């Protein structure tokens, strides 16, 4: 009975995190982007600096009509937002926050689980793009698929480098065997992982699949109301997951002063800094063109990640 209660409590905690953190990131994006562009951003909703803006947005989305285009493939069209969103919820379960089992569920092959399930989320965009019966949506889905195939490989290779260094595939195990000099050792891998992750989330500067000046909003063009909001939520949940994973794999997770008592705070802090960087990149870089995107993945990121794996192997053999 106690075990069941423990599992239920952990799952509820993960669900709460899943519902709260993406909204926090979204609100931060509103405010940080505004200030970087010399604006104030939302100021009215909720009173203090518009803190309730996203709650108000959610209410607005829920009131809108849920339109399914007449020629669309109804079931696939309606199922797509769930397929896009749920994988990130599952991934959050496996990300360790603090020492001593502060994790939704410790998995033996956690690294593989996380990468595998994150890859499934893209199916949601593909389903949405095809089922909309709209040429812009189809183009967006095609670009999504091409981008995923190009960036999945460097992401996996960079993650494999960390697994080699730690000698385990379990995420808490990787953080436990972390030393401060790993960040320098795995620096290239970390950058590759972060870039490839951004590309998988289709965040600027890798947002060619949803380029509004060319194809309106890519695969999500035909969506309205709550289903559109679910796609947006998936994007922000993706940011949380990517930053959390980068923290766990490359920045040492809960390691820091007084890690025993406030370790979870370090994880959250590092994740928050990375999320800030994600927003910062959106404000400062122009969108990469499709050929530039592919060239970056195949001619820069993959060779770099292979070099990182070689370096990891050599250092690992030398120090052991």
């Amino acid at each position: 009975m106690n075990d069941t209660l423990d599992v239920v409590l952990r799952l509820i905690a993960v669900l709460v995190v899943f519902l709260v953190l993406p909204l926090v990131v979204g609100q931060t994006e509103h405010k940080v982007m505004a200030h970087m562009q010399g604006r104030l951003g939302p100021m009215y909703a909720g009173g203090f600096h518009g803190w309730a803006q996203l709650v108000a947005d959610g209410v607005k989305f829920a009131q809108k009509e849920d339109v399914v285009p007449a020629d669309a493939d109804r079931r696939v069209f309606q199922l797509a937002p769930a397929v896009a969103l749920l994988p990130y919820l599952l991934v959050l379960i496996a990300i360790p926050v603090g020492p001593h089992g502060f994790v939704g569920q410790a998995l033996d092959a956690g690294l593989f689980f996380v990468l595998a399930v994150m890859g499934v989320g893209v199916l949601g965009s593909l389903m949405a793009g095809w089922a909309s019966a709209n040429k812009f949506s189809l183009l967006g889905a095609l670009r999504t698929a091409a981008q995923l195939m190009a960036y999945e490989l460097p992401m996996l290779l960079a993650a494999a480098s960390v697994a080699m260094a730690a000698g385990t595939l379990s995420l808490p195990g990787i953080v436990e065997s972390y030393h401060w000099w790993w960040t320098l050792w795995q620096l290239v891998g970390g950058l590759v992982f972060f870039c490839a992750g951004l590309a998988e989330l289709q965040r600027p500067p890798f947002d060619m699949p949803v380029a509004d000046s060319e194809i309106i909003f890519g695969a999500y063009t035909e969506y309205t109301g709550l289903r559109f909001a679910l796609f947006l939520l998936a994007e922000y949940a993706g940011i949380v997951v990517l930053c959390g994973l980068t923290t766990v794999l490359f920045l040492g997770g809960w390691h820091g002063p007084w890690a025993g008592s406030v370790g979870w705070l370090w994880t959250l802090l590092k994740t928050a800094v990375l999320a800030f960087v994600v927003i910062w990149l959106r404000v400062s870089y122009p969108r990469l063109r499709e050929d530039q995107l592919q060239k970056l993945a195949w001619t820069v990121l993959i060779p770099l990640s292979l070099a990182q794996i070689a370096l990891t192997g050599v250092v690992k053999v030398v120090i052991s």
Partner: protein
Amino acid sequence: MNPGTVLAAAAHHPGFLSPTGVEITFVLVGLATLGAALLTVTTKQLVHAALWLVVALGGLAVEYLLLTAEFIAWVQVLIYVGSVVVLLLFGLMLTKAPIGRSPDADSGNRWVAVGVAGAAAVTLVWVVVDAFRSTWINLHGAVQGTSHATGTSLFRHWVLPFEALSVLLLAALVGAIVLSRRTDGGKETE
């Protein structure tokens, strides 16, 4: 007799007449996987076939999980659901796969294909049943499918097949590059 001893007795003396919860789940997931696989080959809508394939491959991953092969299960999701199906969908979208039925989704080779698939299925089922007839996985003992156990057996006992497969994949890779370069119209780019 309370339920606890019944379960313990079932665990000690495995048999087909007293299935445990895991075994029932295994059969149900297997039936769902089989259904999805049948829909994959019988549906007239091309993209639906690819999506049913996702369900079938995902069901297989769940079966691996139930057999305690956690590592293999996640690799299955990563490679097949995450990459192969995305590649498949990419290809289908390039052909402008229509919404609704594709009239030419039927093949004249249907009955030959059914024969080949049936023969392959019978052979595989027969071989697997014959090989593992009396093997039972102890779900309460040490997990047999951890990444550690899989890695040890792969790189201690099965290194040669592993390397042979790598060479095969390398050959496929080189072949793909050669084929895709030849379609350039014979122009040398260097």
